[in-house]
């Protein structure tokens, strides 16, 4: 039974949110460089993150050159190989994914989607970006110092990270790495406070927590996790800097390096691992939760159907966030920690699989009985579903302590985390860029190019990482620049490695098309209009596209949840959140 009431909505009182005093920039410098507008900051964050991400992409190609065609390139030695691996990992996890999801999408979408004029502390927000930028500069600088960047692996495990057997260990490499991380954390904390407080205190009238789009739920929860998890990394970096520079022994036991007794003594390398992974595991969800949120909105919008089980999705995000703090030691099953920890952490790890699986079911069930538009964002969402499901399921191998023992530190692990934390979130990032680019620039990205980009990226990435699991199953350890002479590794693994490398180059090259699309569509893209995807959330209801300073003329009032797609009896197949027209009697 459907009944559209025409209740007089002119009686609705105006917004009760206090109008905030906005900072009005006047010069070019304050408008576009030292900008305090979250949208500009978002674009700055995104450009720097994508820029440094491309560096990491080039590094990954160099890694694959060595693995696919060992001994063919003289400039890749074991030393440079480890430097490439380390910098690739660190850049991708911290400086690209974290910065892009929270600094980029968070800054752009939070104020718009909750109906605020800007972040609550715009000045701090600006500082956040510039400190991040400084962190990136320091990171890049480490490529140019004597000895080069650190080659300790992105986990930076002591003692080797600060000893001479590791590239950059006794030079400036590791120092710059640690400084850069510390800067990143300080900058991020400034931004993170903004994201959290804006969601808590900046919502417009009618925007209850349960009317927030899942994108905001994901970014919000991820930010809370990051605020609580990054201090662990900060503590670890401070202690390691002291060990390296001032001769303390926080992480350094008494040891003999190449026959020479060092003056360290009594420190605990395991303490570092606990601190690192206490940050490191929530970090996985800091990247995953925004992706979960965004992909929910993409699927719902492009399938013209409400997200299935909204409440369950919110609970799952919160639950996964809380649980993610008590699973960290599943990265340390073979670290030599007390073996009885294995029981606890295997159990918590597998429990976290349940809410995660529910999210997957709900995305899939959203497709059921939908009206699926196979746009580029939708294709990327489907790509995310496939790769995330794959990576999530292999997580069940590695989370189960006894299965992890034979597989840990093999290429299986590399394949697993690239699938679940590399390819899957990047699918979402791509989809999100195709989805929101029209709002950010006023023009559509080229769909034809977008589809080619999708197919090459998706199929290519799958061909890289799916077979890689089997390289690990054979027993090939990770972080080996070449296979060497080992009886247990058949010749054919080298062939497979070459194949994977070729696939990797194709995928890497396909990103040129994407960058070209981003740049050329600025000028040549089809005009988007204010709501090209006919979406319900507030960012699509702004009077100007791209939204002007202050986002809205008058702050919007929110009358409904963000998923009123295909409401029976409604005049169109979507009802915007600020549309006062009554929904059906349900």
């Amino acid at each position, binding site marked *: 039974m459907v009944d559209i009431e025409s209740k007089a909505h002119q009686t609705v009182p105006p917004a009760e949110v206090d109008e905030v005093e906005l900072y009005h920039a006047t010069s070019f410098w304050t408008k576009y460089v030292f900008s305090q507008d979250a949208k500009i900051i978002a674009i700055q964050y995104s450009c720097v993150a994508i820029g440094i991400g491309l560096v990491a992409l080039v590094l990954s190609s160099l890694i694959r050159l060595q693995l696919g065609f060992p001994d063919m390139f003289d400039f890749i030695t074991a030393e440079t190989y480890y430097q490439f691996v380390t910098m690739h990992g660190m850049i991708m996890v911290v400086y690209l994914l974290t910065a892009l999801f929270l600094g980029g999408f968070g800054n752009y979408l939070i104020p718009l989607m909750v109906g605020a004029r800007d972040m609550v502390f715009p000045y701090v927000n600006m500082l956040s970006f510039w400190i991040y930028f400084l962190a990136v500069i320091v990171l890049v600088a480490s490529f140019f110092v004597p000895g080069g960047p650190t080659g300790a692996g992105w986990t930076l495990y002591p003692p*080797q990270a600060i000893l001479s057997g590791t590239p950059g260990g006794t030079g400036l490499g590791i120092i710059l790495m640690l400084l850069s991380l510390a800067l990143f954390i300080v900058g991020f904390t400034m931004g993170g406070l903004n994201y959290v407080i804006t969601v808590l205190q900046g919502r417009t009238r009618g925007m209850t927590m349960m009317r927030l789009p899942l994108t905001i739920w994901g970014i919000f929860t991820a930010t809370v996790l990051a605020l609580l998890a990054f201090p662990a990394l900060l503590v670890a970096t401070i202690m390691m800097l002291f060990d390296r520079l001032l001769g303390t022994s926080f992480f350094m036991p008494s040891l003999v390096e190449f026959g020479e007794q060092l003056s360290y003594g009594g420190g605990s390398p395991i303490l570092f691992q606990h601190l690192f992974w206490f940050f490191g595991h929530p970090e996985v969800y800091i990247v995953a939760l925004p992706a979960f949120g965004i992909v929910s909105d993409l699927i719902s919008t492009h399938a013209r159907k409400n997200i299935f089980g909204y409440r369950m999705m919110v609970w799952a995000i919160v639950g996964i966030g809380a649980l993610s703090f008590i699973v960290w030691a599943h990265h340390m099953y073979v670290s*030599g920690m007390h073996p009885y920890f294995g029981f606890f952490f295997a159990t918590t790890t597998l429990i976290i699989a349940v809410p995660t699986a529910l999210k997957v079911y709900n995305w899939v069930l959203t497709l059921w009985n939908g009206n*699926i538009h196979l746009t580029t964002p939708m294709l990327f969402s489907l790509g995310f579903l496939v790769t995330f499901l794959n990576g999530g399921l292999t997580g069940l191998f590695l989370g189960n302590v006894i299965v992890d023992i034979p597989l840990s530190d093999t290429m299986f692990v590399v394949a697993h985390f690239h699938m679940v934390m590399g390819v899957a979130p990047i699918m979402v990032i791509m989809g999100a860029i195709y989805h929101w680019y029209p709002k950010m620039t006023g023009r559509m990205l080229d769909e034809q190019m977008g589809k080619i980009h999708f197919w090459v990226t998706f199929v290519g990435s799958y061909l890289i990482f799916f077979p890689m699991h089997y390289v690990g199953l054979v027993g090939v*350890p990770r972080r080996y620049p070449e296979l060497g002479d080992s009886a247990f590794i058949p010749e054919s693994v080298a062939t497979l490695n070459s194949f994977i490398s070729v696939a990797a180059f194709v995928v890497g090259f396909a990103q040129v098309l994407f960058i070209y699309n981003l740049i050329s569509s600025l000028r040549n893209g089809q005009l988007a209009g204010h709501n090209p995807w006919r979406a319900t959330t507030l960012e699509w209801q702004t009077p100007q596209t791209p939204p002007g300073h202050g986002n809205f003329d008058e702050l919007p009032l929110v009358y409904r949840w963000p998923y009123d797609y295909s409401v029976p009896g409604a005049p169109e197949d979507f009802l915007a959140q600020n549309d006062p027209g009554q929904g059906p009697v349900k």
Partner: protein
Amino acid sequence: MGVAIAIVVVVVGSVLFHLFSPWWWTPIATNWVFMDDMISLTFWITGVVYVAVLLFVAYCVFKFQYREGRIAAYEPENNKLEGWLTVLTSLGVAALLAPGLVVWFQFVNVPEEATEIEVVGQQWSWSYRLPGLDGKLGTADNRLISVDNTLGINPDDPNGQDDIIIDGDDLHFALGKPVKMLLRSVDVLHDYYVPEFRAKMDMVPGMITYFWIEPTRVGTFDVLCAELCGVGHGFMRGTVLIDSEEDYALWLSEQITFAQMLEQRDVKVASAVKP
């Protein structure tokens, strides 16, 4: 249509790859067959989920693709369905976890009759120490390491005098005799990794870690390091052999003890000084 087919191709391709892949684990040489079984079990359970979910996605994409005039259903939630899915998932997870924890319990509890072997890792080589006739290893400390005592064995500990030192040579195991591997590192983190053993564990300076195995197959196997330990990580290799009991006894009789090693050195030094 094309997208649905592509997803089906991914699913079928993955399954076929799995079934016909020539890349599989090396034949096991220890008692940890359970680990292989657990991997197989996990493959089965996760494989079924993977195939089922993706085929469902493919069907949805095929069936509910945009058509002029189609209206999507309005279906905010379905508690019953979600409840069932939660229960099923929990059951699947429990089916993986429960046997896994049982095997883990066996893994961390070393059988009484296991003999001890100490493995010492350093950048970038492996050394070993076996308890002598007394069946006990002497104490050791990184502080005691010197040119003459590369493993840092305590020269004042009577238990250590008859310890057998294997420095820069292969280690042998006796078939069917359970062994507790005590792992020690001189400098940085290492990980004693023999793919055929399945079991492995990090070596942490300042700590002694362990795992245990029971060799079940005669053969020669590669030792690798599985925890990044500096530029030489990829070249930190060795060889171990699993021998029949007679061969093992023969090999053992040819090894020298810590006391003999110190003596030999003294003799060498003395003869070098005399002329």
